[in-house]
């Protein structure tokens, strides 16, 4: 059973370790992700979640560990190569392309070699109709097509739209995996309610999502499995209900109850 699961794993990470000077950010963290699942990563601030993503997606070199994508080793690959094979990510601190309107922000991923080869989301986006495809993508994730919203400067959009723009940036690349770094944070309840259908639609299209989140209740509505980190170590992994009951997880979030 174990071996069969590993063979299905679209992304397999083992033993990732990273220290910054004297600070150990990650210690021997790993997981196996099945294709098409939604996998959550939770943990208090500073537990190393974003560093973990950075190590896998090539923005930081891990000190130790291995990353396999569909069985092929991609450890240490530069970020753009990893994005090229279909592993995309959002950024926690959003920085859209300020000087460009929202839909033009998507032209850039549509120009990437991957999007040019595979066509952006739902095909198309070859030279010439990129503008249209960009607006299409925005519509898919909830920008109202006929309003002025897609044409506004990216820096003037409210947070909810900017978060969706981040996600759209990944979608434009026809990804296989999207690492969502706190896409729910800073959003109001109604904005989150608007994001969840997008997430579910992505799952239906077969995209694997790995979501780092603080908003546990919302995350648990969509996640199939969850992993908890604390101080750079994996302290629990499994179904959301199990993980939330795990004593170490409770301790990490709520503090120890010992007197």
């Amino acid at each position: 059973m174990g071996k069969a699961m590993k063979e299905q794993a679209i992304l397999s990470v083992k033993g990732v370790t990273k220290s910054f000077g004297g600070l150990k950010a990650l210690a021997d963290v790993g997981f196996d992700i099945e294709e098409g699942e939604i996998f959550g990563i939770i943990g208090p601030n500073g537990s190393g979640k974003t560093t973990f993503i950075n190590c896998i997606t090539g923005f930081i070199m891990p000190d130790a560990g291995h990353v396999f994508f569909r069985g092929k080793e991609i450890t240490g690959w530069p970020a753009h190569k990893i994005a090229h094979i279909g592993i995309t990510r959002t950024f926690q601190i959003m920085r859209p392309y300020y000087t460009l309107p929202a839909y033009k922000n998507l032209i850039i991923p549509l120009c990437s070699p991957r999007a040019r080869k595979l066509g952006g989301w739902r095909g198309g986006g070859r030279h010439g109709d990129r503008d249209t495809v960009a607006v299409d993508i925005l519509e898919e994730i909830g920008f109202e097509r006929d309003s002025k919203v897609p044409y506004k400067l990216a820096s003037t959009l409210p947070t909810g739209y900017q978060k969706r723009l981040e996600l759209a940036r990944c979608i434009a690349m026809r990804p296989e995996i999207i690492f969502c770094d706190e896409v729910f944070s800073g959003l109001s309840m109604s904005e989150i309610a608007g994001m969840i259908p997008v997430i579910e639609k992505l799952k239906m299209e077969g995209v694997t999502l790995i979501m780092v989140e603080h908003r546990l209740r919302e995350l648990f509505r969509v996640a199939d499995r969850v992993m908890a980190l604390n101080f750079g170590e994996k302290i629990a992994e499994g179904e959301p209900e199990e993980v939330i009951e795990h004593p170490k997880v409770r301790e990490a979030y709520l503090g120890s109850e010992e007197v």
Partner: protein
Amino acid sequence: MELLIYGIINSITLSLISLGFTLVYSISRLPNFAHGALYISSGYLVWTFLNRVGLPYLPSILLGIGLTSLIGAGIYRFILIRIRGMEISEIIATYAIGLAIIEGLRWGGLRGMTFTLPSFVSGSVRFLGVGVDYQRLFVVGIGLITFLLLYLFTHFNKIGLALRGIAQNERAAMMLGINSDMTAVISLAIGSGLAGFAAVLILPLGSIIVETGYNVLIFAIAVSIIGGLGSWGGAIVASFIIGLAQILTEAFISSHFQMVIALLAIIVTLILKPSGIFGRQKELEERV
């Protein structure tokens, strides 16, 4: 043996020249392209005090260095502070100011004769079988003392520790209440003062030429790139590498090689380890 002695002298000279630049960058992340200009203006200032105003040597030196420090601090306080954080503008502005100073000196400064500063002590001595004049020994000696003082300052004095803290991690230092603008002014004052100090020590070995302003800037930058932008240890190590290499090539090949060595060293560094020997800039990693 002779080569070794001269190599060490050259290296310490280089490190004195570059220290101010490295210091300013490490503390305030400001590449002070006016460094060379400050160096050479200190020389001119001291000469003016000495020969036009008629002050004795020591007060001239002190005044010269002091004024240079003030000029450096003033540059930050009145000009750079308004464009703080906009890297592109900072770079252009310091470059423009440096150029303005150097070319201004070239145009208005004391043309006609060669200008020299007198040595502190004349005469020479035989050191380990090699003839070295006192002035150079002075440079080495004072250089070493300076390094020692700087080390003590940044490890034991409160202000020095604050500066070192900012150099290592600006955000954390700011959270601890250290005022970033104030430290930038201080660092620029110290950096310019060091430039002036180096000038006062080294210029007596030759004459005061405006071109030196550019050469100093080139050397300071070369040392910084090779040693790692902002790394004090790296600056010293790099100075030794370049300094020794220069002396060696001067002896065995030809004396024109000073600049070529600097250029080659830069290119080699950029190819092999672009962030320099002790460079902490892990290229683009930091900003994620």
